[in-house]
């Protein structure tokens, strides 16, 4: 048995282990004696998932192209870290990564569950069982028959060969896997009719989920920004939305759990939110991997095999119907305690904040699902434009920002003295007004565009940043562990401020450059200075060299946007283009080749790829024998779309075909496809009517390996002000989340070490460890 066969076997073993664990844990809820066996079964599942993942990594590192997956996503010339990351670059690998993290996180979870262990682990193991079962249907360990083993792999998609892309999937899949934890605990709570006890266990894990999912989203956004070349970090793509929606729900859940711990309310909605996270991601998985959205997404989807897709659907239905059904069944016995006591109270602010988050999640989900919904309702598939997400979500984003700015100065219950409250918020409020007026004046004098919505958003974001910063400043000395939330809120304000500024005040300049031509852009004289490796083979890290010389005495630099051909599939060389980002403290200069990062137009004088030919002549070019029969003119002389075609008789491997590459006036062209790959084109400015001669240009031919030496480069430069605020904000968000997570894990450990100190009614009794709102007590 070879390694890949062991892999297949281990997957089956894992599926069996997880199914057994599900049954045994469920039994253990009634008969405690089974618990030992349940744990053993779960250990077997973990061992199998980890081993299977290890085997896939090993196969990728060994470049074992006998395995279909490895041949499809890896190649022997990759550095070790990209061989490693090809283990999760494909469909099967990413499911295995998901299963791997689910299994491993279970080990962390099981130690903290105590009396919750049997029921929680039964549910949790069942999710792992589903994942392992999907992997039996969509196995990463399929092998080629020995006679068909390819000598080399297809290589990792060059866009994925990026530092950020190497760590994005492992991070975000911890988040996806951990969505199962609040779900499982909530089911156990509903079954046990324990409306408060689950909160303390779930809390740190929910924050873990928030941090990892959030970090994954951020890394993905940063990757898109630095490699894709369209200039943004968030595109409301279905794949992005399917992670954003559960993340927003989890964000709401964290706040709900805080309210429940402090004020003993929101029992029903917390259980509901905990039950929604995982099924929402299962739905996203279905949406993005079934091909249902294939028309409206730009992500590369390989539709799942039928059996595996069926299991994804079964998983979605099981946990949605099961979770919601159980919640509805228990709804009347879950306590419903009113908490909000006044307009100026944390209780109300938290509730409104949670509602805003859930509504943003819901509206985003509806937008992303529109192709499916419209097909069901109107029998005609429709998709929403990106601006839907901005318009629909804006009111709730504004409300959320306003709340984030007010919360540091609110206490639980209600503010007794409105005057004191107003006095407290006056500092950040006036500061915001001053900044707002300054921005408004500046916009007026600099003739910047103005939009009320964007201005309002930036104002609210500034208010949020300032008022939370005041609180963080106070807490930093006194109780740094409790400042996590406020730090995160500063981050949210910064991200939204930076996103609004960099998108709304973005300026763009475009130019077509060629040898000896210059263009002026944003105070720089820009010229094309060749390729970085003009003599290298295609497929090596070539980049376009663009000289940026400052016209006003500033710093000059050379931009090197990546541009080369990936030739792992020699029949279909593929263009790879990545932007160059010139970083400045206040702005980014985003330099991309062509629209959306593609499209250097190659024209070469290289004799190996050009062929001057006269009418009536027959010449050879590689394996082609070409006779230039005659010109063919279409359209009227003088009109822009008049075209001149060269009628060619091409003989290739004994077969004759006629083809007509055409030159269109105004230097457009229509190439003709050659048999055997590649194409041939002619250009208007190279047609010599007197000599009756044209120059044939050959592109993308097999074996054509050097970069063209004569190019026209479409350069697109975008100036994006304040984009650094986005990155700073994301760092603060993760830092804040990390602090909160540490605090909650520490609390959970402490509570579990002294079980006697915590009576059963956790929610009813404000605990000693819980402080009143620090902002209010700030004067102490």
């Amino acid at each position, binding site marked *: 048995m070879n390694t890949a066969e062991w892999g297949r076997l281990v997957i089956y073993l894992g599926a069996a282990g997880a199914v057994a664990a599900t049954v045994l844990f469920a039994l253990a809820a009634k008969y405690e004696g089974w618990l030992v066996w349940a744990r053993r079964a779960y250990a077997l599942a973990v061992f199998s998932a980890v081993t299977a993942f290890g085997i896939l990594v090993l196969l990728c590192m060994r470049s074992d192209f006998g395995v279909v997956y490895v041949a499809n996503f890896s190649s022997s010339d990759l550095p070790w870290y990209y061989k490693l990351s090809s283990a999760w670059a494909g469909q099967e690998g990413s499911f295995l990564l998901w299963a791997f993290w689910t299994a491993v996180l279970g080990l962390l979870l099981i130690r903290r569950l105590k009396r919750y262990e049997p029921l929680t682990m039964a549910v949790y193991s069942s999710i792992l069982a589903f994942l392992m079962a999907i992997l039996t249907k969509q196995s990463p360990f399929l092998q080629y028959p020995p006679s068909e083993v390819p000598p080399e792999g297809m290589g990792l998609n060059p866009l994925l060969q990026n530092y950020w892309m190497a760590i994005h999937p492992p991070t975000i899949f911890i988040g996806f896997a951990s969505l199962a934890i609040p779900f499982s605990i909530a089911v156990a709570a509903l079954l046990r009719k324990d409306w408060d006890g689950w909160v303390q266990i779930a809390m740190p894990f929910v924050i873990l989920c928030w941090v990892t999912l959030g970090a994954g989203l951020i890394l993905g956004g940063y990757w898109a920004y630095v490699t894709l070349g369209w200039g943004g970090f968030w595109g409301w793509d279905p794949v992005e939305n399917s992670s954003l929606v559960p993340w927003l729900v989890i964000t709401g859940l964290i706040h709900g759990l805080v309210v429940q711990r402090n004020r003993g309310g929101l029992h029903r909605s917390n259980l509901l939110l905990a039950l929604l996270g995982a099924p929402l991601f299962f739905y996203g998985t279905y949406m993005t991997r079934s091909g249902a959205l294939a028309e409206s997404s730009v992500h*590369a989807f390989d539709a799942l095999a039928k059996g595996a897709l069926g299991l994804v659907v079964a998983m979605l239905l099981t946990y949605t119907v099961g979770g919601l059904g159980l919640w509805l069944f228990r709804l009347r016995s879950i306590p419903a305690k009113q908490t909000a006591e006044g307009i100026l109270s944390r209780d109300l602010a938290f509730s409104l904040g949670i509602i805003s988050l859930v509504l943003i999640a819901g509206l985003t989900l509806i937008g992303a699902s529109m192709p499916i919904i419209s097909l069901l309702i109107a029998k005609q598939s429709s998709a929403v434009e990106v601006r839907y997400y901005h318009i629909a979500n804006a009111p709730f984003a504004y409300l959320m920002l306003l709340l984030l700015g007010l919360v540091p100065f609110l206490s639980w219950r209600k503010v007794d003295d409105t005057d004191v409250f107003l006095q407290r918020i006056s500092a950040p409020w006036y500061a915001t007004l001053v900044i707002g007026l300054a921005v408004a004046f500046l916009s007026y004098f600099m003739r910047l565009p103005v939009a009320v919505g964007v201005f309002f958003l930036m104002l609210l974001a500034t208010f949020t940043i300032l008022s939370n910063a005041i609180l963080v400043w106070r807490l930093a000395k006194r109780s740094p562990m409790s400042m996590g939330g406020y730090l995160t809120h500063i981050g949210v304000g910064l991200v939204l401020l930076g996103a609004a500024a960099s998108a709304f005040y973005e300026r763009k300049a475009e130019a077509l450059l060629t040898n000896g031509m210059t263009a002026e852009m944003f105070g720089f004289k820009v010229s094309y200075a060749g390729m970085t490796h003009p003599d290298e083979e295609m497929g090596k890290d070539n980049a376009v060299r663009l000289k940026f010389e400052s016209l006003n005495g500033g710093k000059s630099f050379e931009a090197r946007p990546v541009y080369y051909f990936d030739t792992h599939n020699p029949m279909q060389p593929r263009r790879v283009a990545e932007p160059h980002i010139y970083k400045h403290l206040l702005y980014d200069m985003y330099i991309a080749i062509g629209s959306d990062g593609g*499209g250097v137009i190659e024209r070469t004088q290289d004799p190996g790829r050009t062929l001057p030919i006269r009418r009536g002549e027959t010449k050879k070019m590689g394996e082609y024998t070409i006779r230039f029969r005659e010109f063919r003119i279409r359209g009227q002389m003088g009109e822009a779309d008049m075209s001149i075609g060269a009628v060619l008789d091409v003989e290739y491997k004994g077969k004759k075909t006629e083809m007509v590459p055409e030159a*269109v006036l105004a230097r457009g062209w229509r190439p003709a496809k050659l048999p055997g790959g590649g194409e041939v084109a002619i250009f208007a400015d190279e047609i010599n009517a007197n000599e009756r001669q044209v120059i044939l240009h050959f592109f993308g031919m097999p074996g054509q390996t050097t970069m063209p030496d004569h190019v026209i480069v479409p350069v697109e430069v975008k100036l994006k002000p304040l984009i650094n605020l986005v990155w700073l904000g994301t760092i603060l968000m993760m830092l804040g989340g990390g602090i909160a997570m540490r605090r909650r894990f520490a609390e959970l450990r402490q509570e579990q070490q002294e079980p006697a100190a915590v009576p059963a009614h956790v929610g009813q009794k404000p605990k000693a460890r819980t402080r009143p709102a620090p902002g209010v007590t700030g004067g102490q």
Partner: protein
Amino acid sequence: MKKAYLFAIGFIALGLFMAGRAMIQTIVPYVSVAEARESTRKVQVKGKLVAGSLQMDAMRGETRFLIEDAKGDRLPIVHPKLAQGNVEQATEIVAIGQMQGKVFVAEKILYKCPSKYQGKQMQEYQESSQ
């Protein structure tokens, strides 16, 4: 207390109303070539690239081509920028835009290319937008 709830409910209702309007304004239906030709609003139309019709005009920065839908209907499309990547190898193109006279002006085109992973049923989309 009541006031707080009324305020919240009022705000949420208003927000949802605006979201509904946004949905109506921004929804773009997928249509056939015949429907696209008659349409007066923004639509998305899908079809095969008619072989040999692709024209990249570097000076005007335009991409022009014909698509043919499942019924064999053809539609001339202008994309006001040079499309990236291998449009010529596209097996299927989705154009999002509006009719202007007899041509369809696509502000965005998505194209599905036969993937480099040949032999497997993999497809991928590339995107070009204004």
